[in-house]
């Protein structure tokens, strides 16, 4: 998944003494689809499968983090935007 910032850009921010605005979201917690009333049909979600289980990462939730560190079926996954 593409991001607006590449690695060189992050380092440039640090060299300029600026804070990195994108903080990794660690283990956000997952809910059943029926509980997700905050999403509209057209909202885009990044779909990840591990060990036969599927999980959606709504772009509008993860975009301001750029990186989500999560666990699915006892496997560590890194979701990047």
């Amino acid at each position: 998944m593409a991001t607006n910032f590449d690695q060189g850009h992050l380092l440039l921010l640090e060299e300029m003494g600026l804070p990195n605005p994108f903080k990794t979201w660690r283990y956000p917690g997952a809910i059943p689809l029926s509980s997700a009333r905050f999403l509209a049909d057209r909202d885009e979600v990044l779909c990840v499968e591990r060990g036969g289980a599927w999980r959606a990462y709504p772009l509008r939730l993860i975009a301001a983090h750029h990186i989500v560190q999560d666990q699915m079926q006892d496997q560590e996954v890194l979701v990047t935007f």
Partner: protein
Amino acid sequence: MRDKETGSCWLHFTGECVMGRYAGHALALVPTSLLSWRAFRTLYPQATVIGPTNPLWRRLLGRIISNPPVFVMPGFFRRTMREPDRRLPESELGLGLVIRQRRASDSVIESAERFYPRRPVRGAGVINDRIGDIPVMIASDPWSGSSVAFVAVMDGRELHFRPAEEGLFLDETTGTLFDLAGRGVRGPLQGRRLHPAPSISARWYGFVTTYPRASIWIAGG
């Protein structure tokens, strides 16, 4: 991105470490797809979704970043990039395929990359294409306009698709209907599944920065 344990720097596009202790290593890529919420919950009703537990200001910022009214490349960001490839607008959304094949003559692995801009793919509904020797199918999610890609071969037979019902695609070779997960849902290949083609949803500038030799799919080309 950088890991805190060693400070090594990794490309999020490919999972490769380009600087630091793990330079030369790569994280294992997990196949993903970008779909509409409507398509996802239809295809995977037993799945889960992450909840809105992050701070409200990040959720509001995320709405803007994920769907900006106007795409603006920050000036200082541009300083870290090579000259833009103007074959497409840099903000163009699309699906980039990366196909690697081992050459039979000398076992060298060749890589071919192609970018499928979202808008013409949506207009077509489904694309039948070939990258190197590999037939591929690119299908458009009718609710979001995003695309998914599959290898259009099953049991050694090349398949050829056209749009059918909403979110479904008909293989004209066998008469089987497939969904956006690549599953045969009706017809002779019901229950079978197409193999996903290695792909990444991206803006043009990001894909061509990583794969500067990428070709572009053109409707009617």
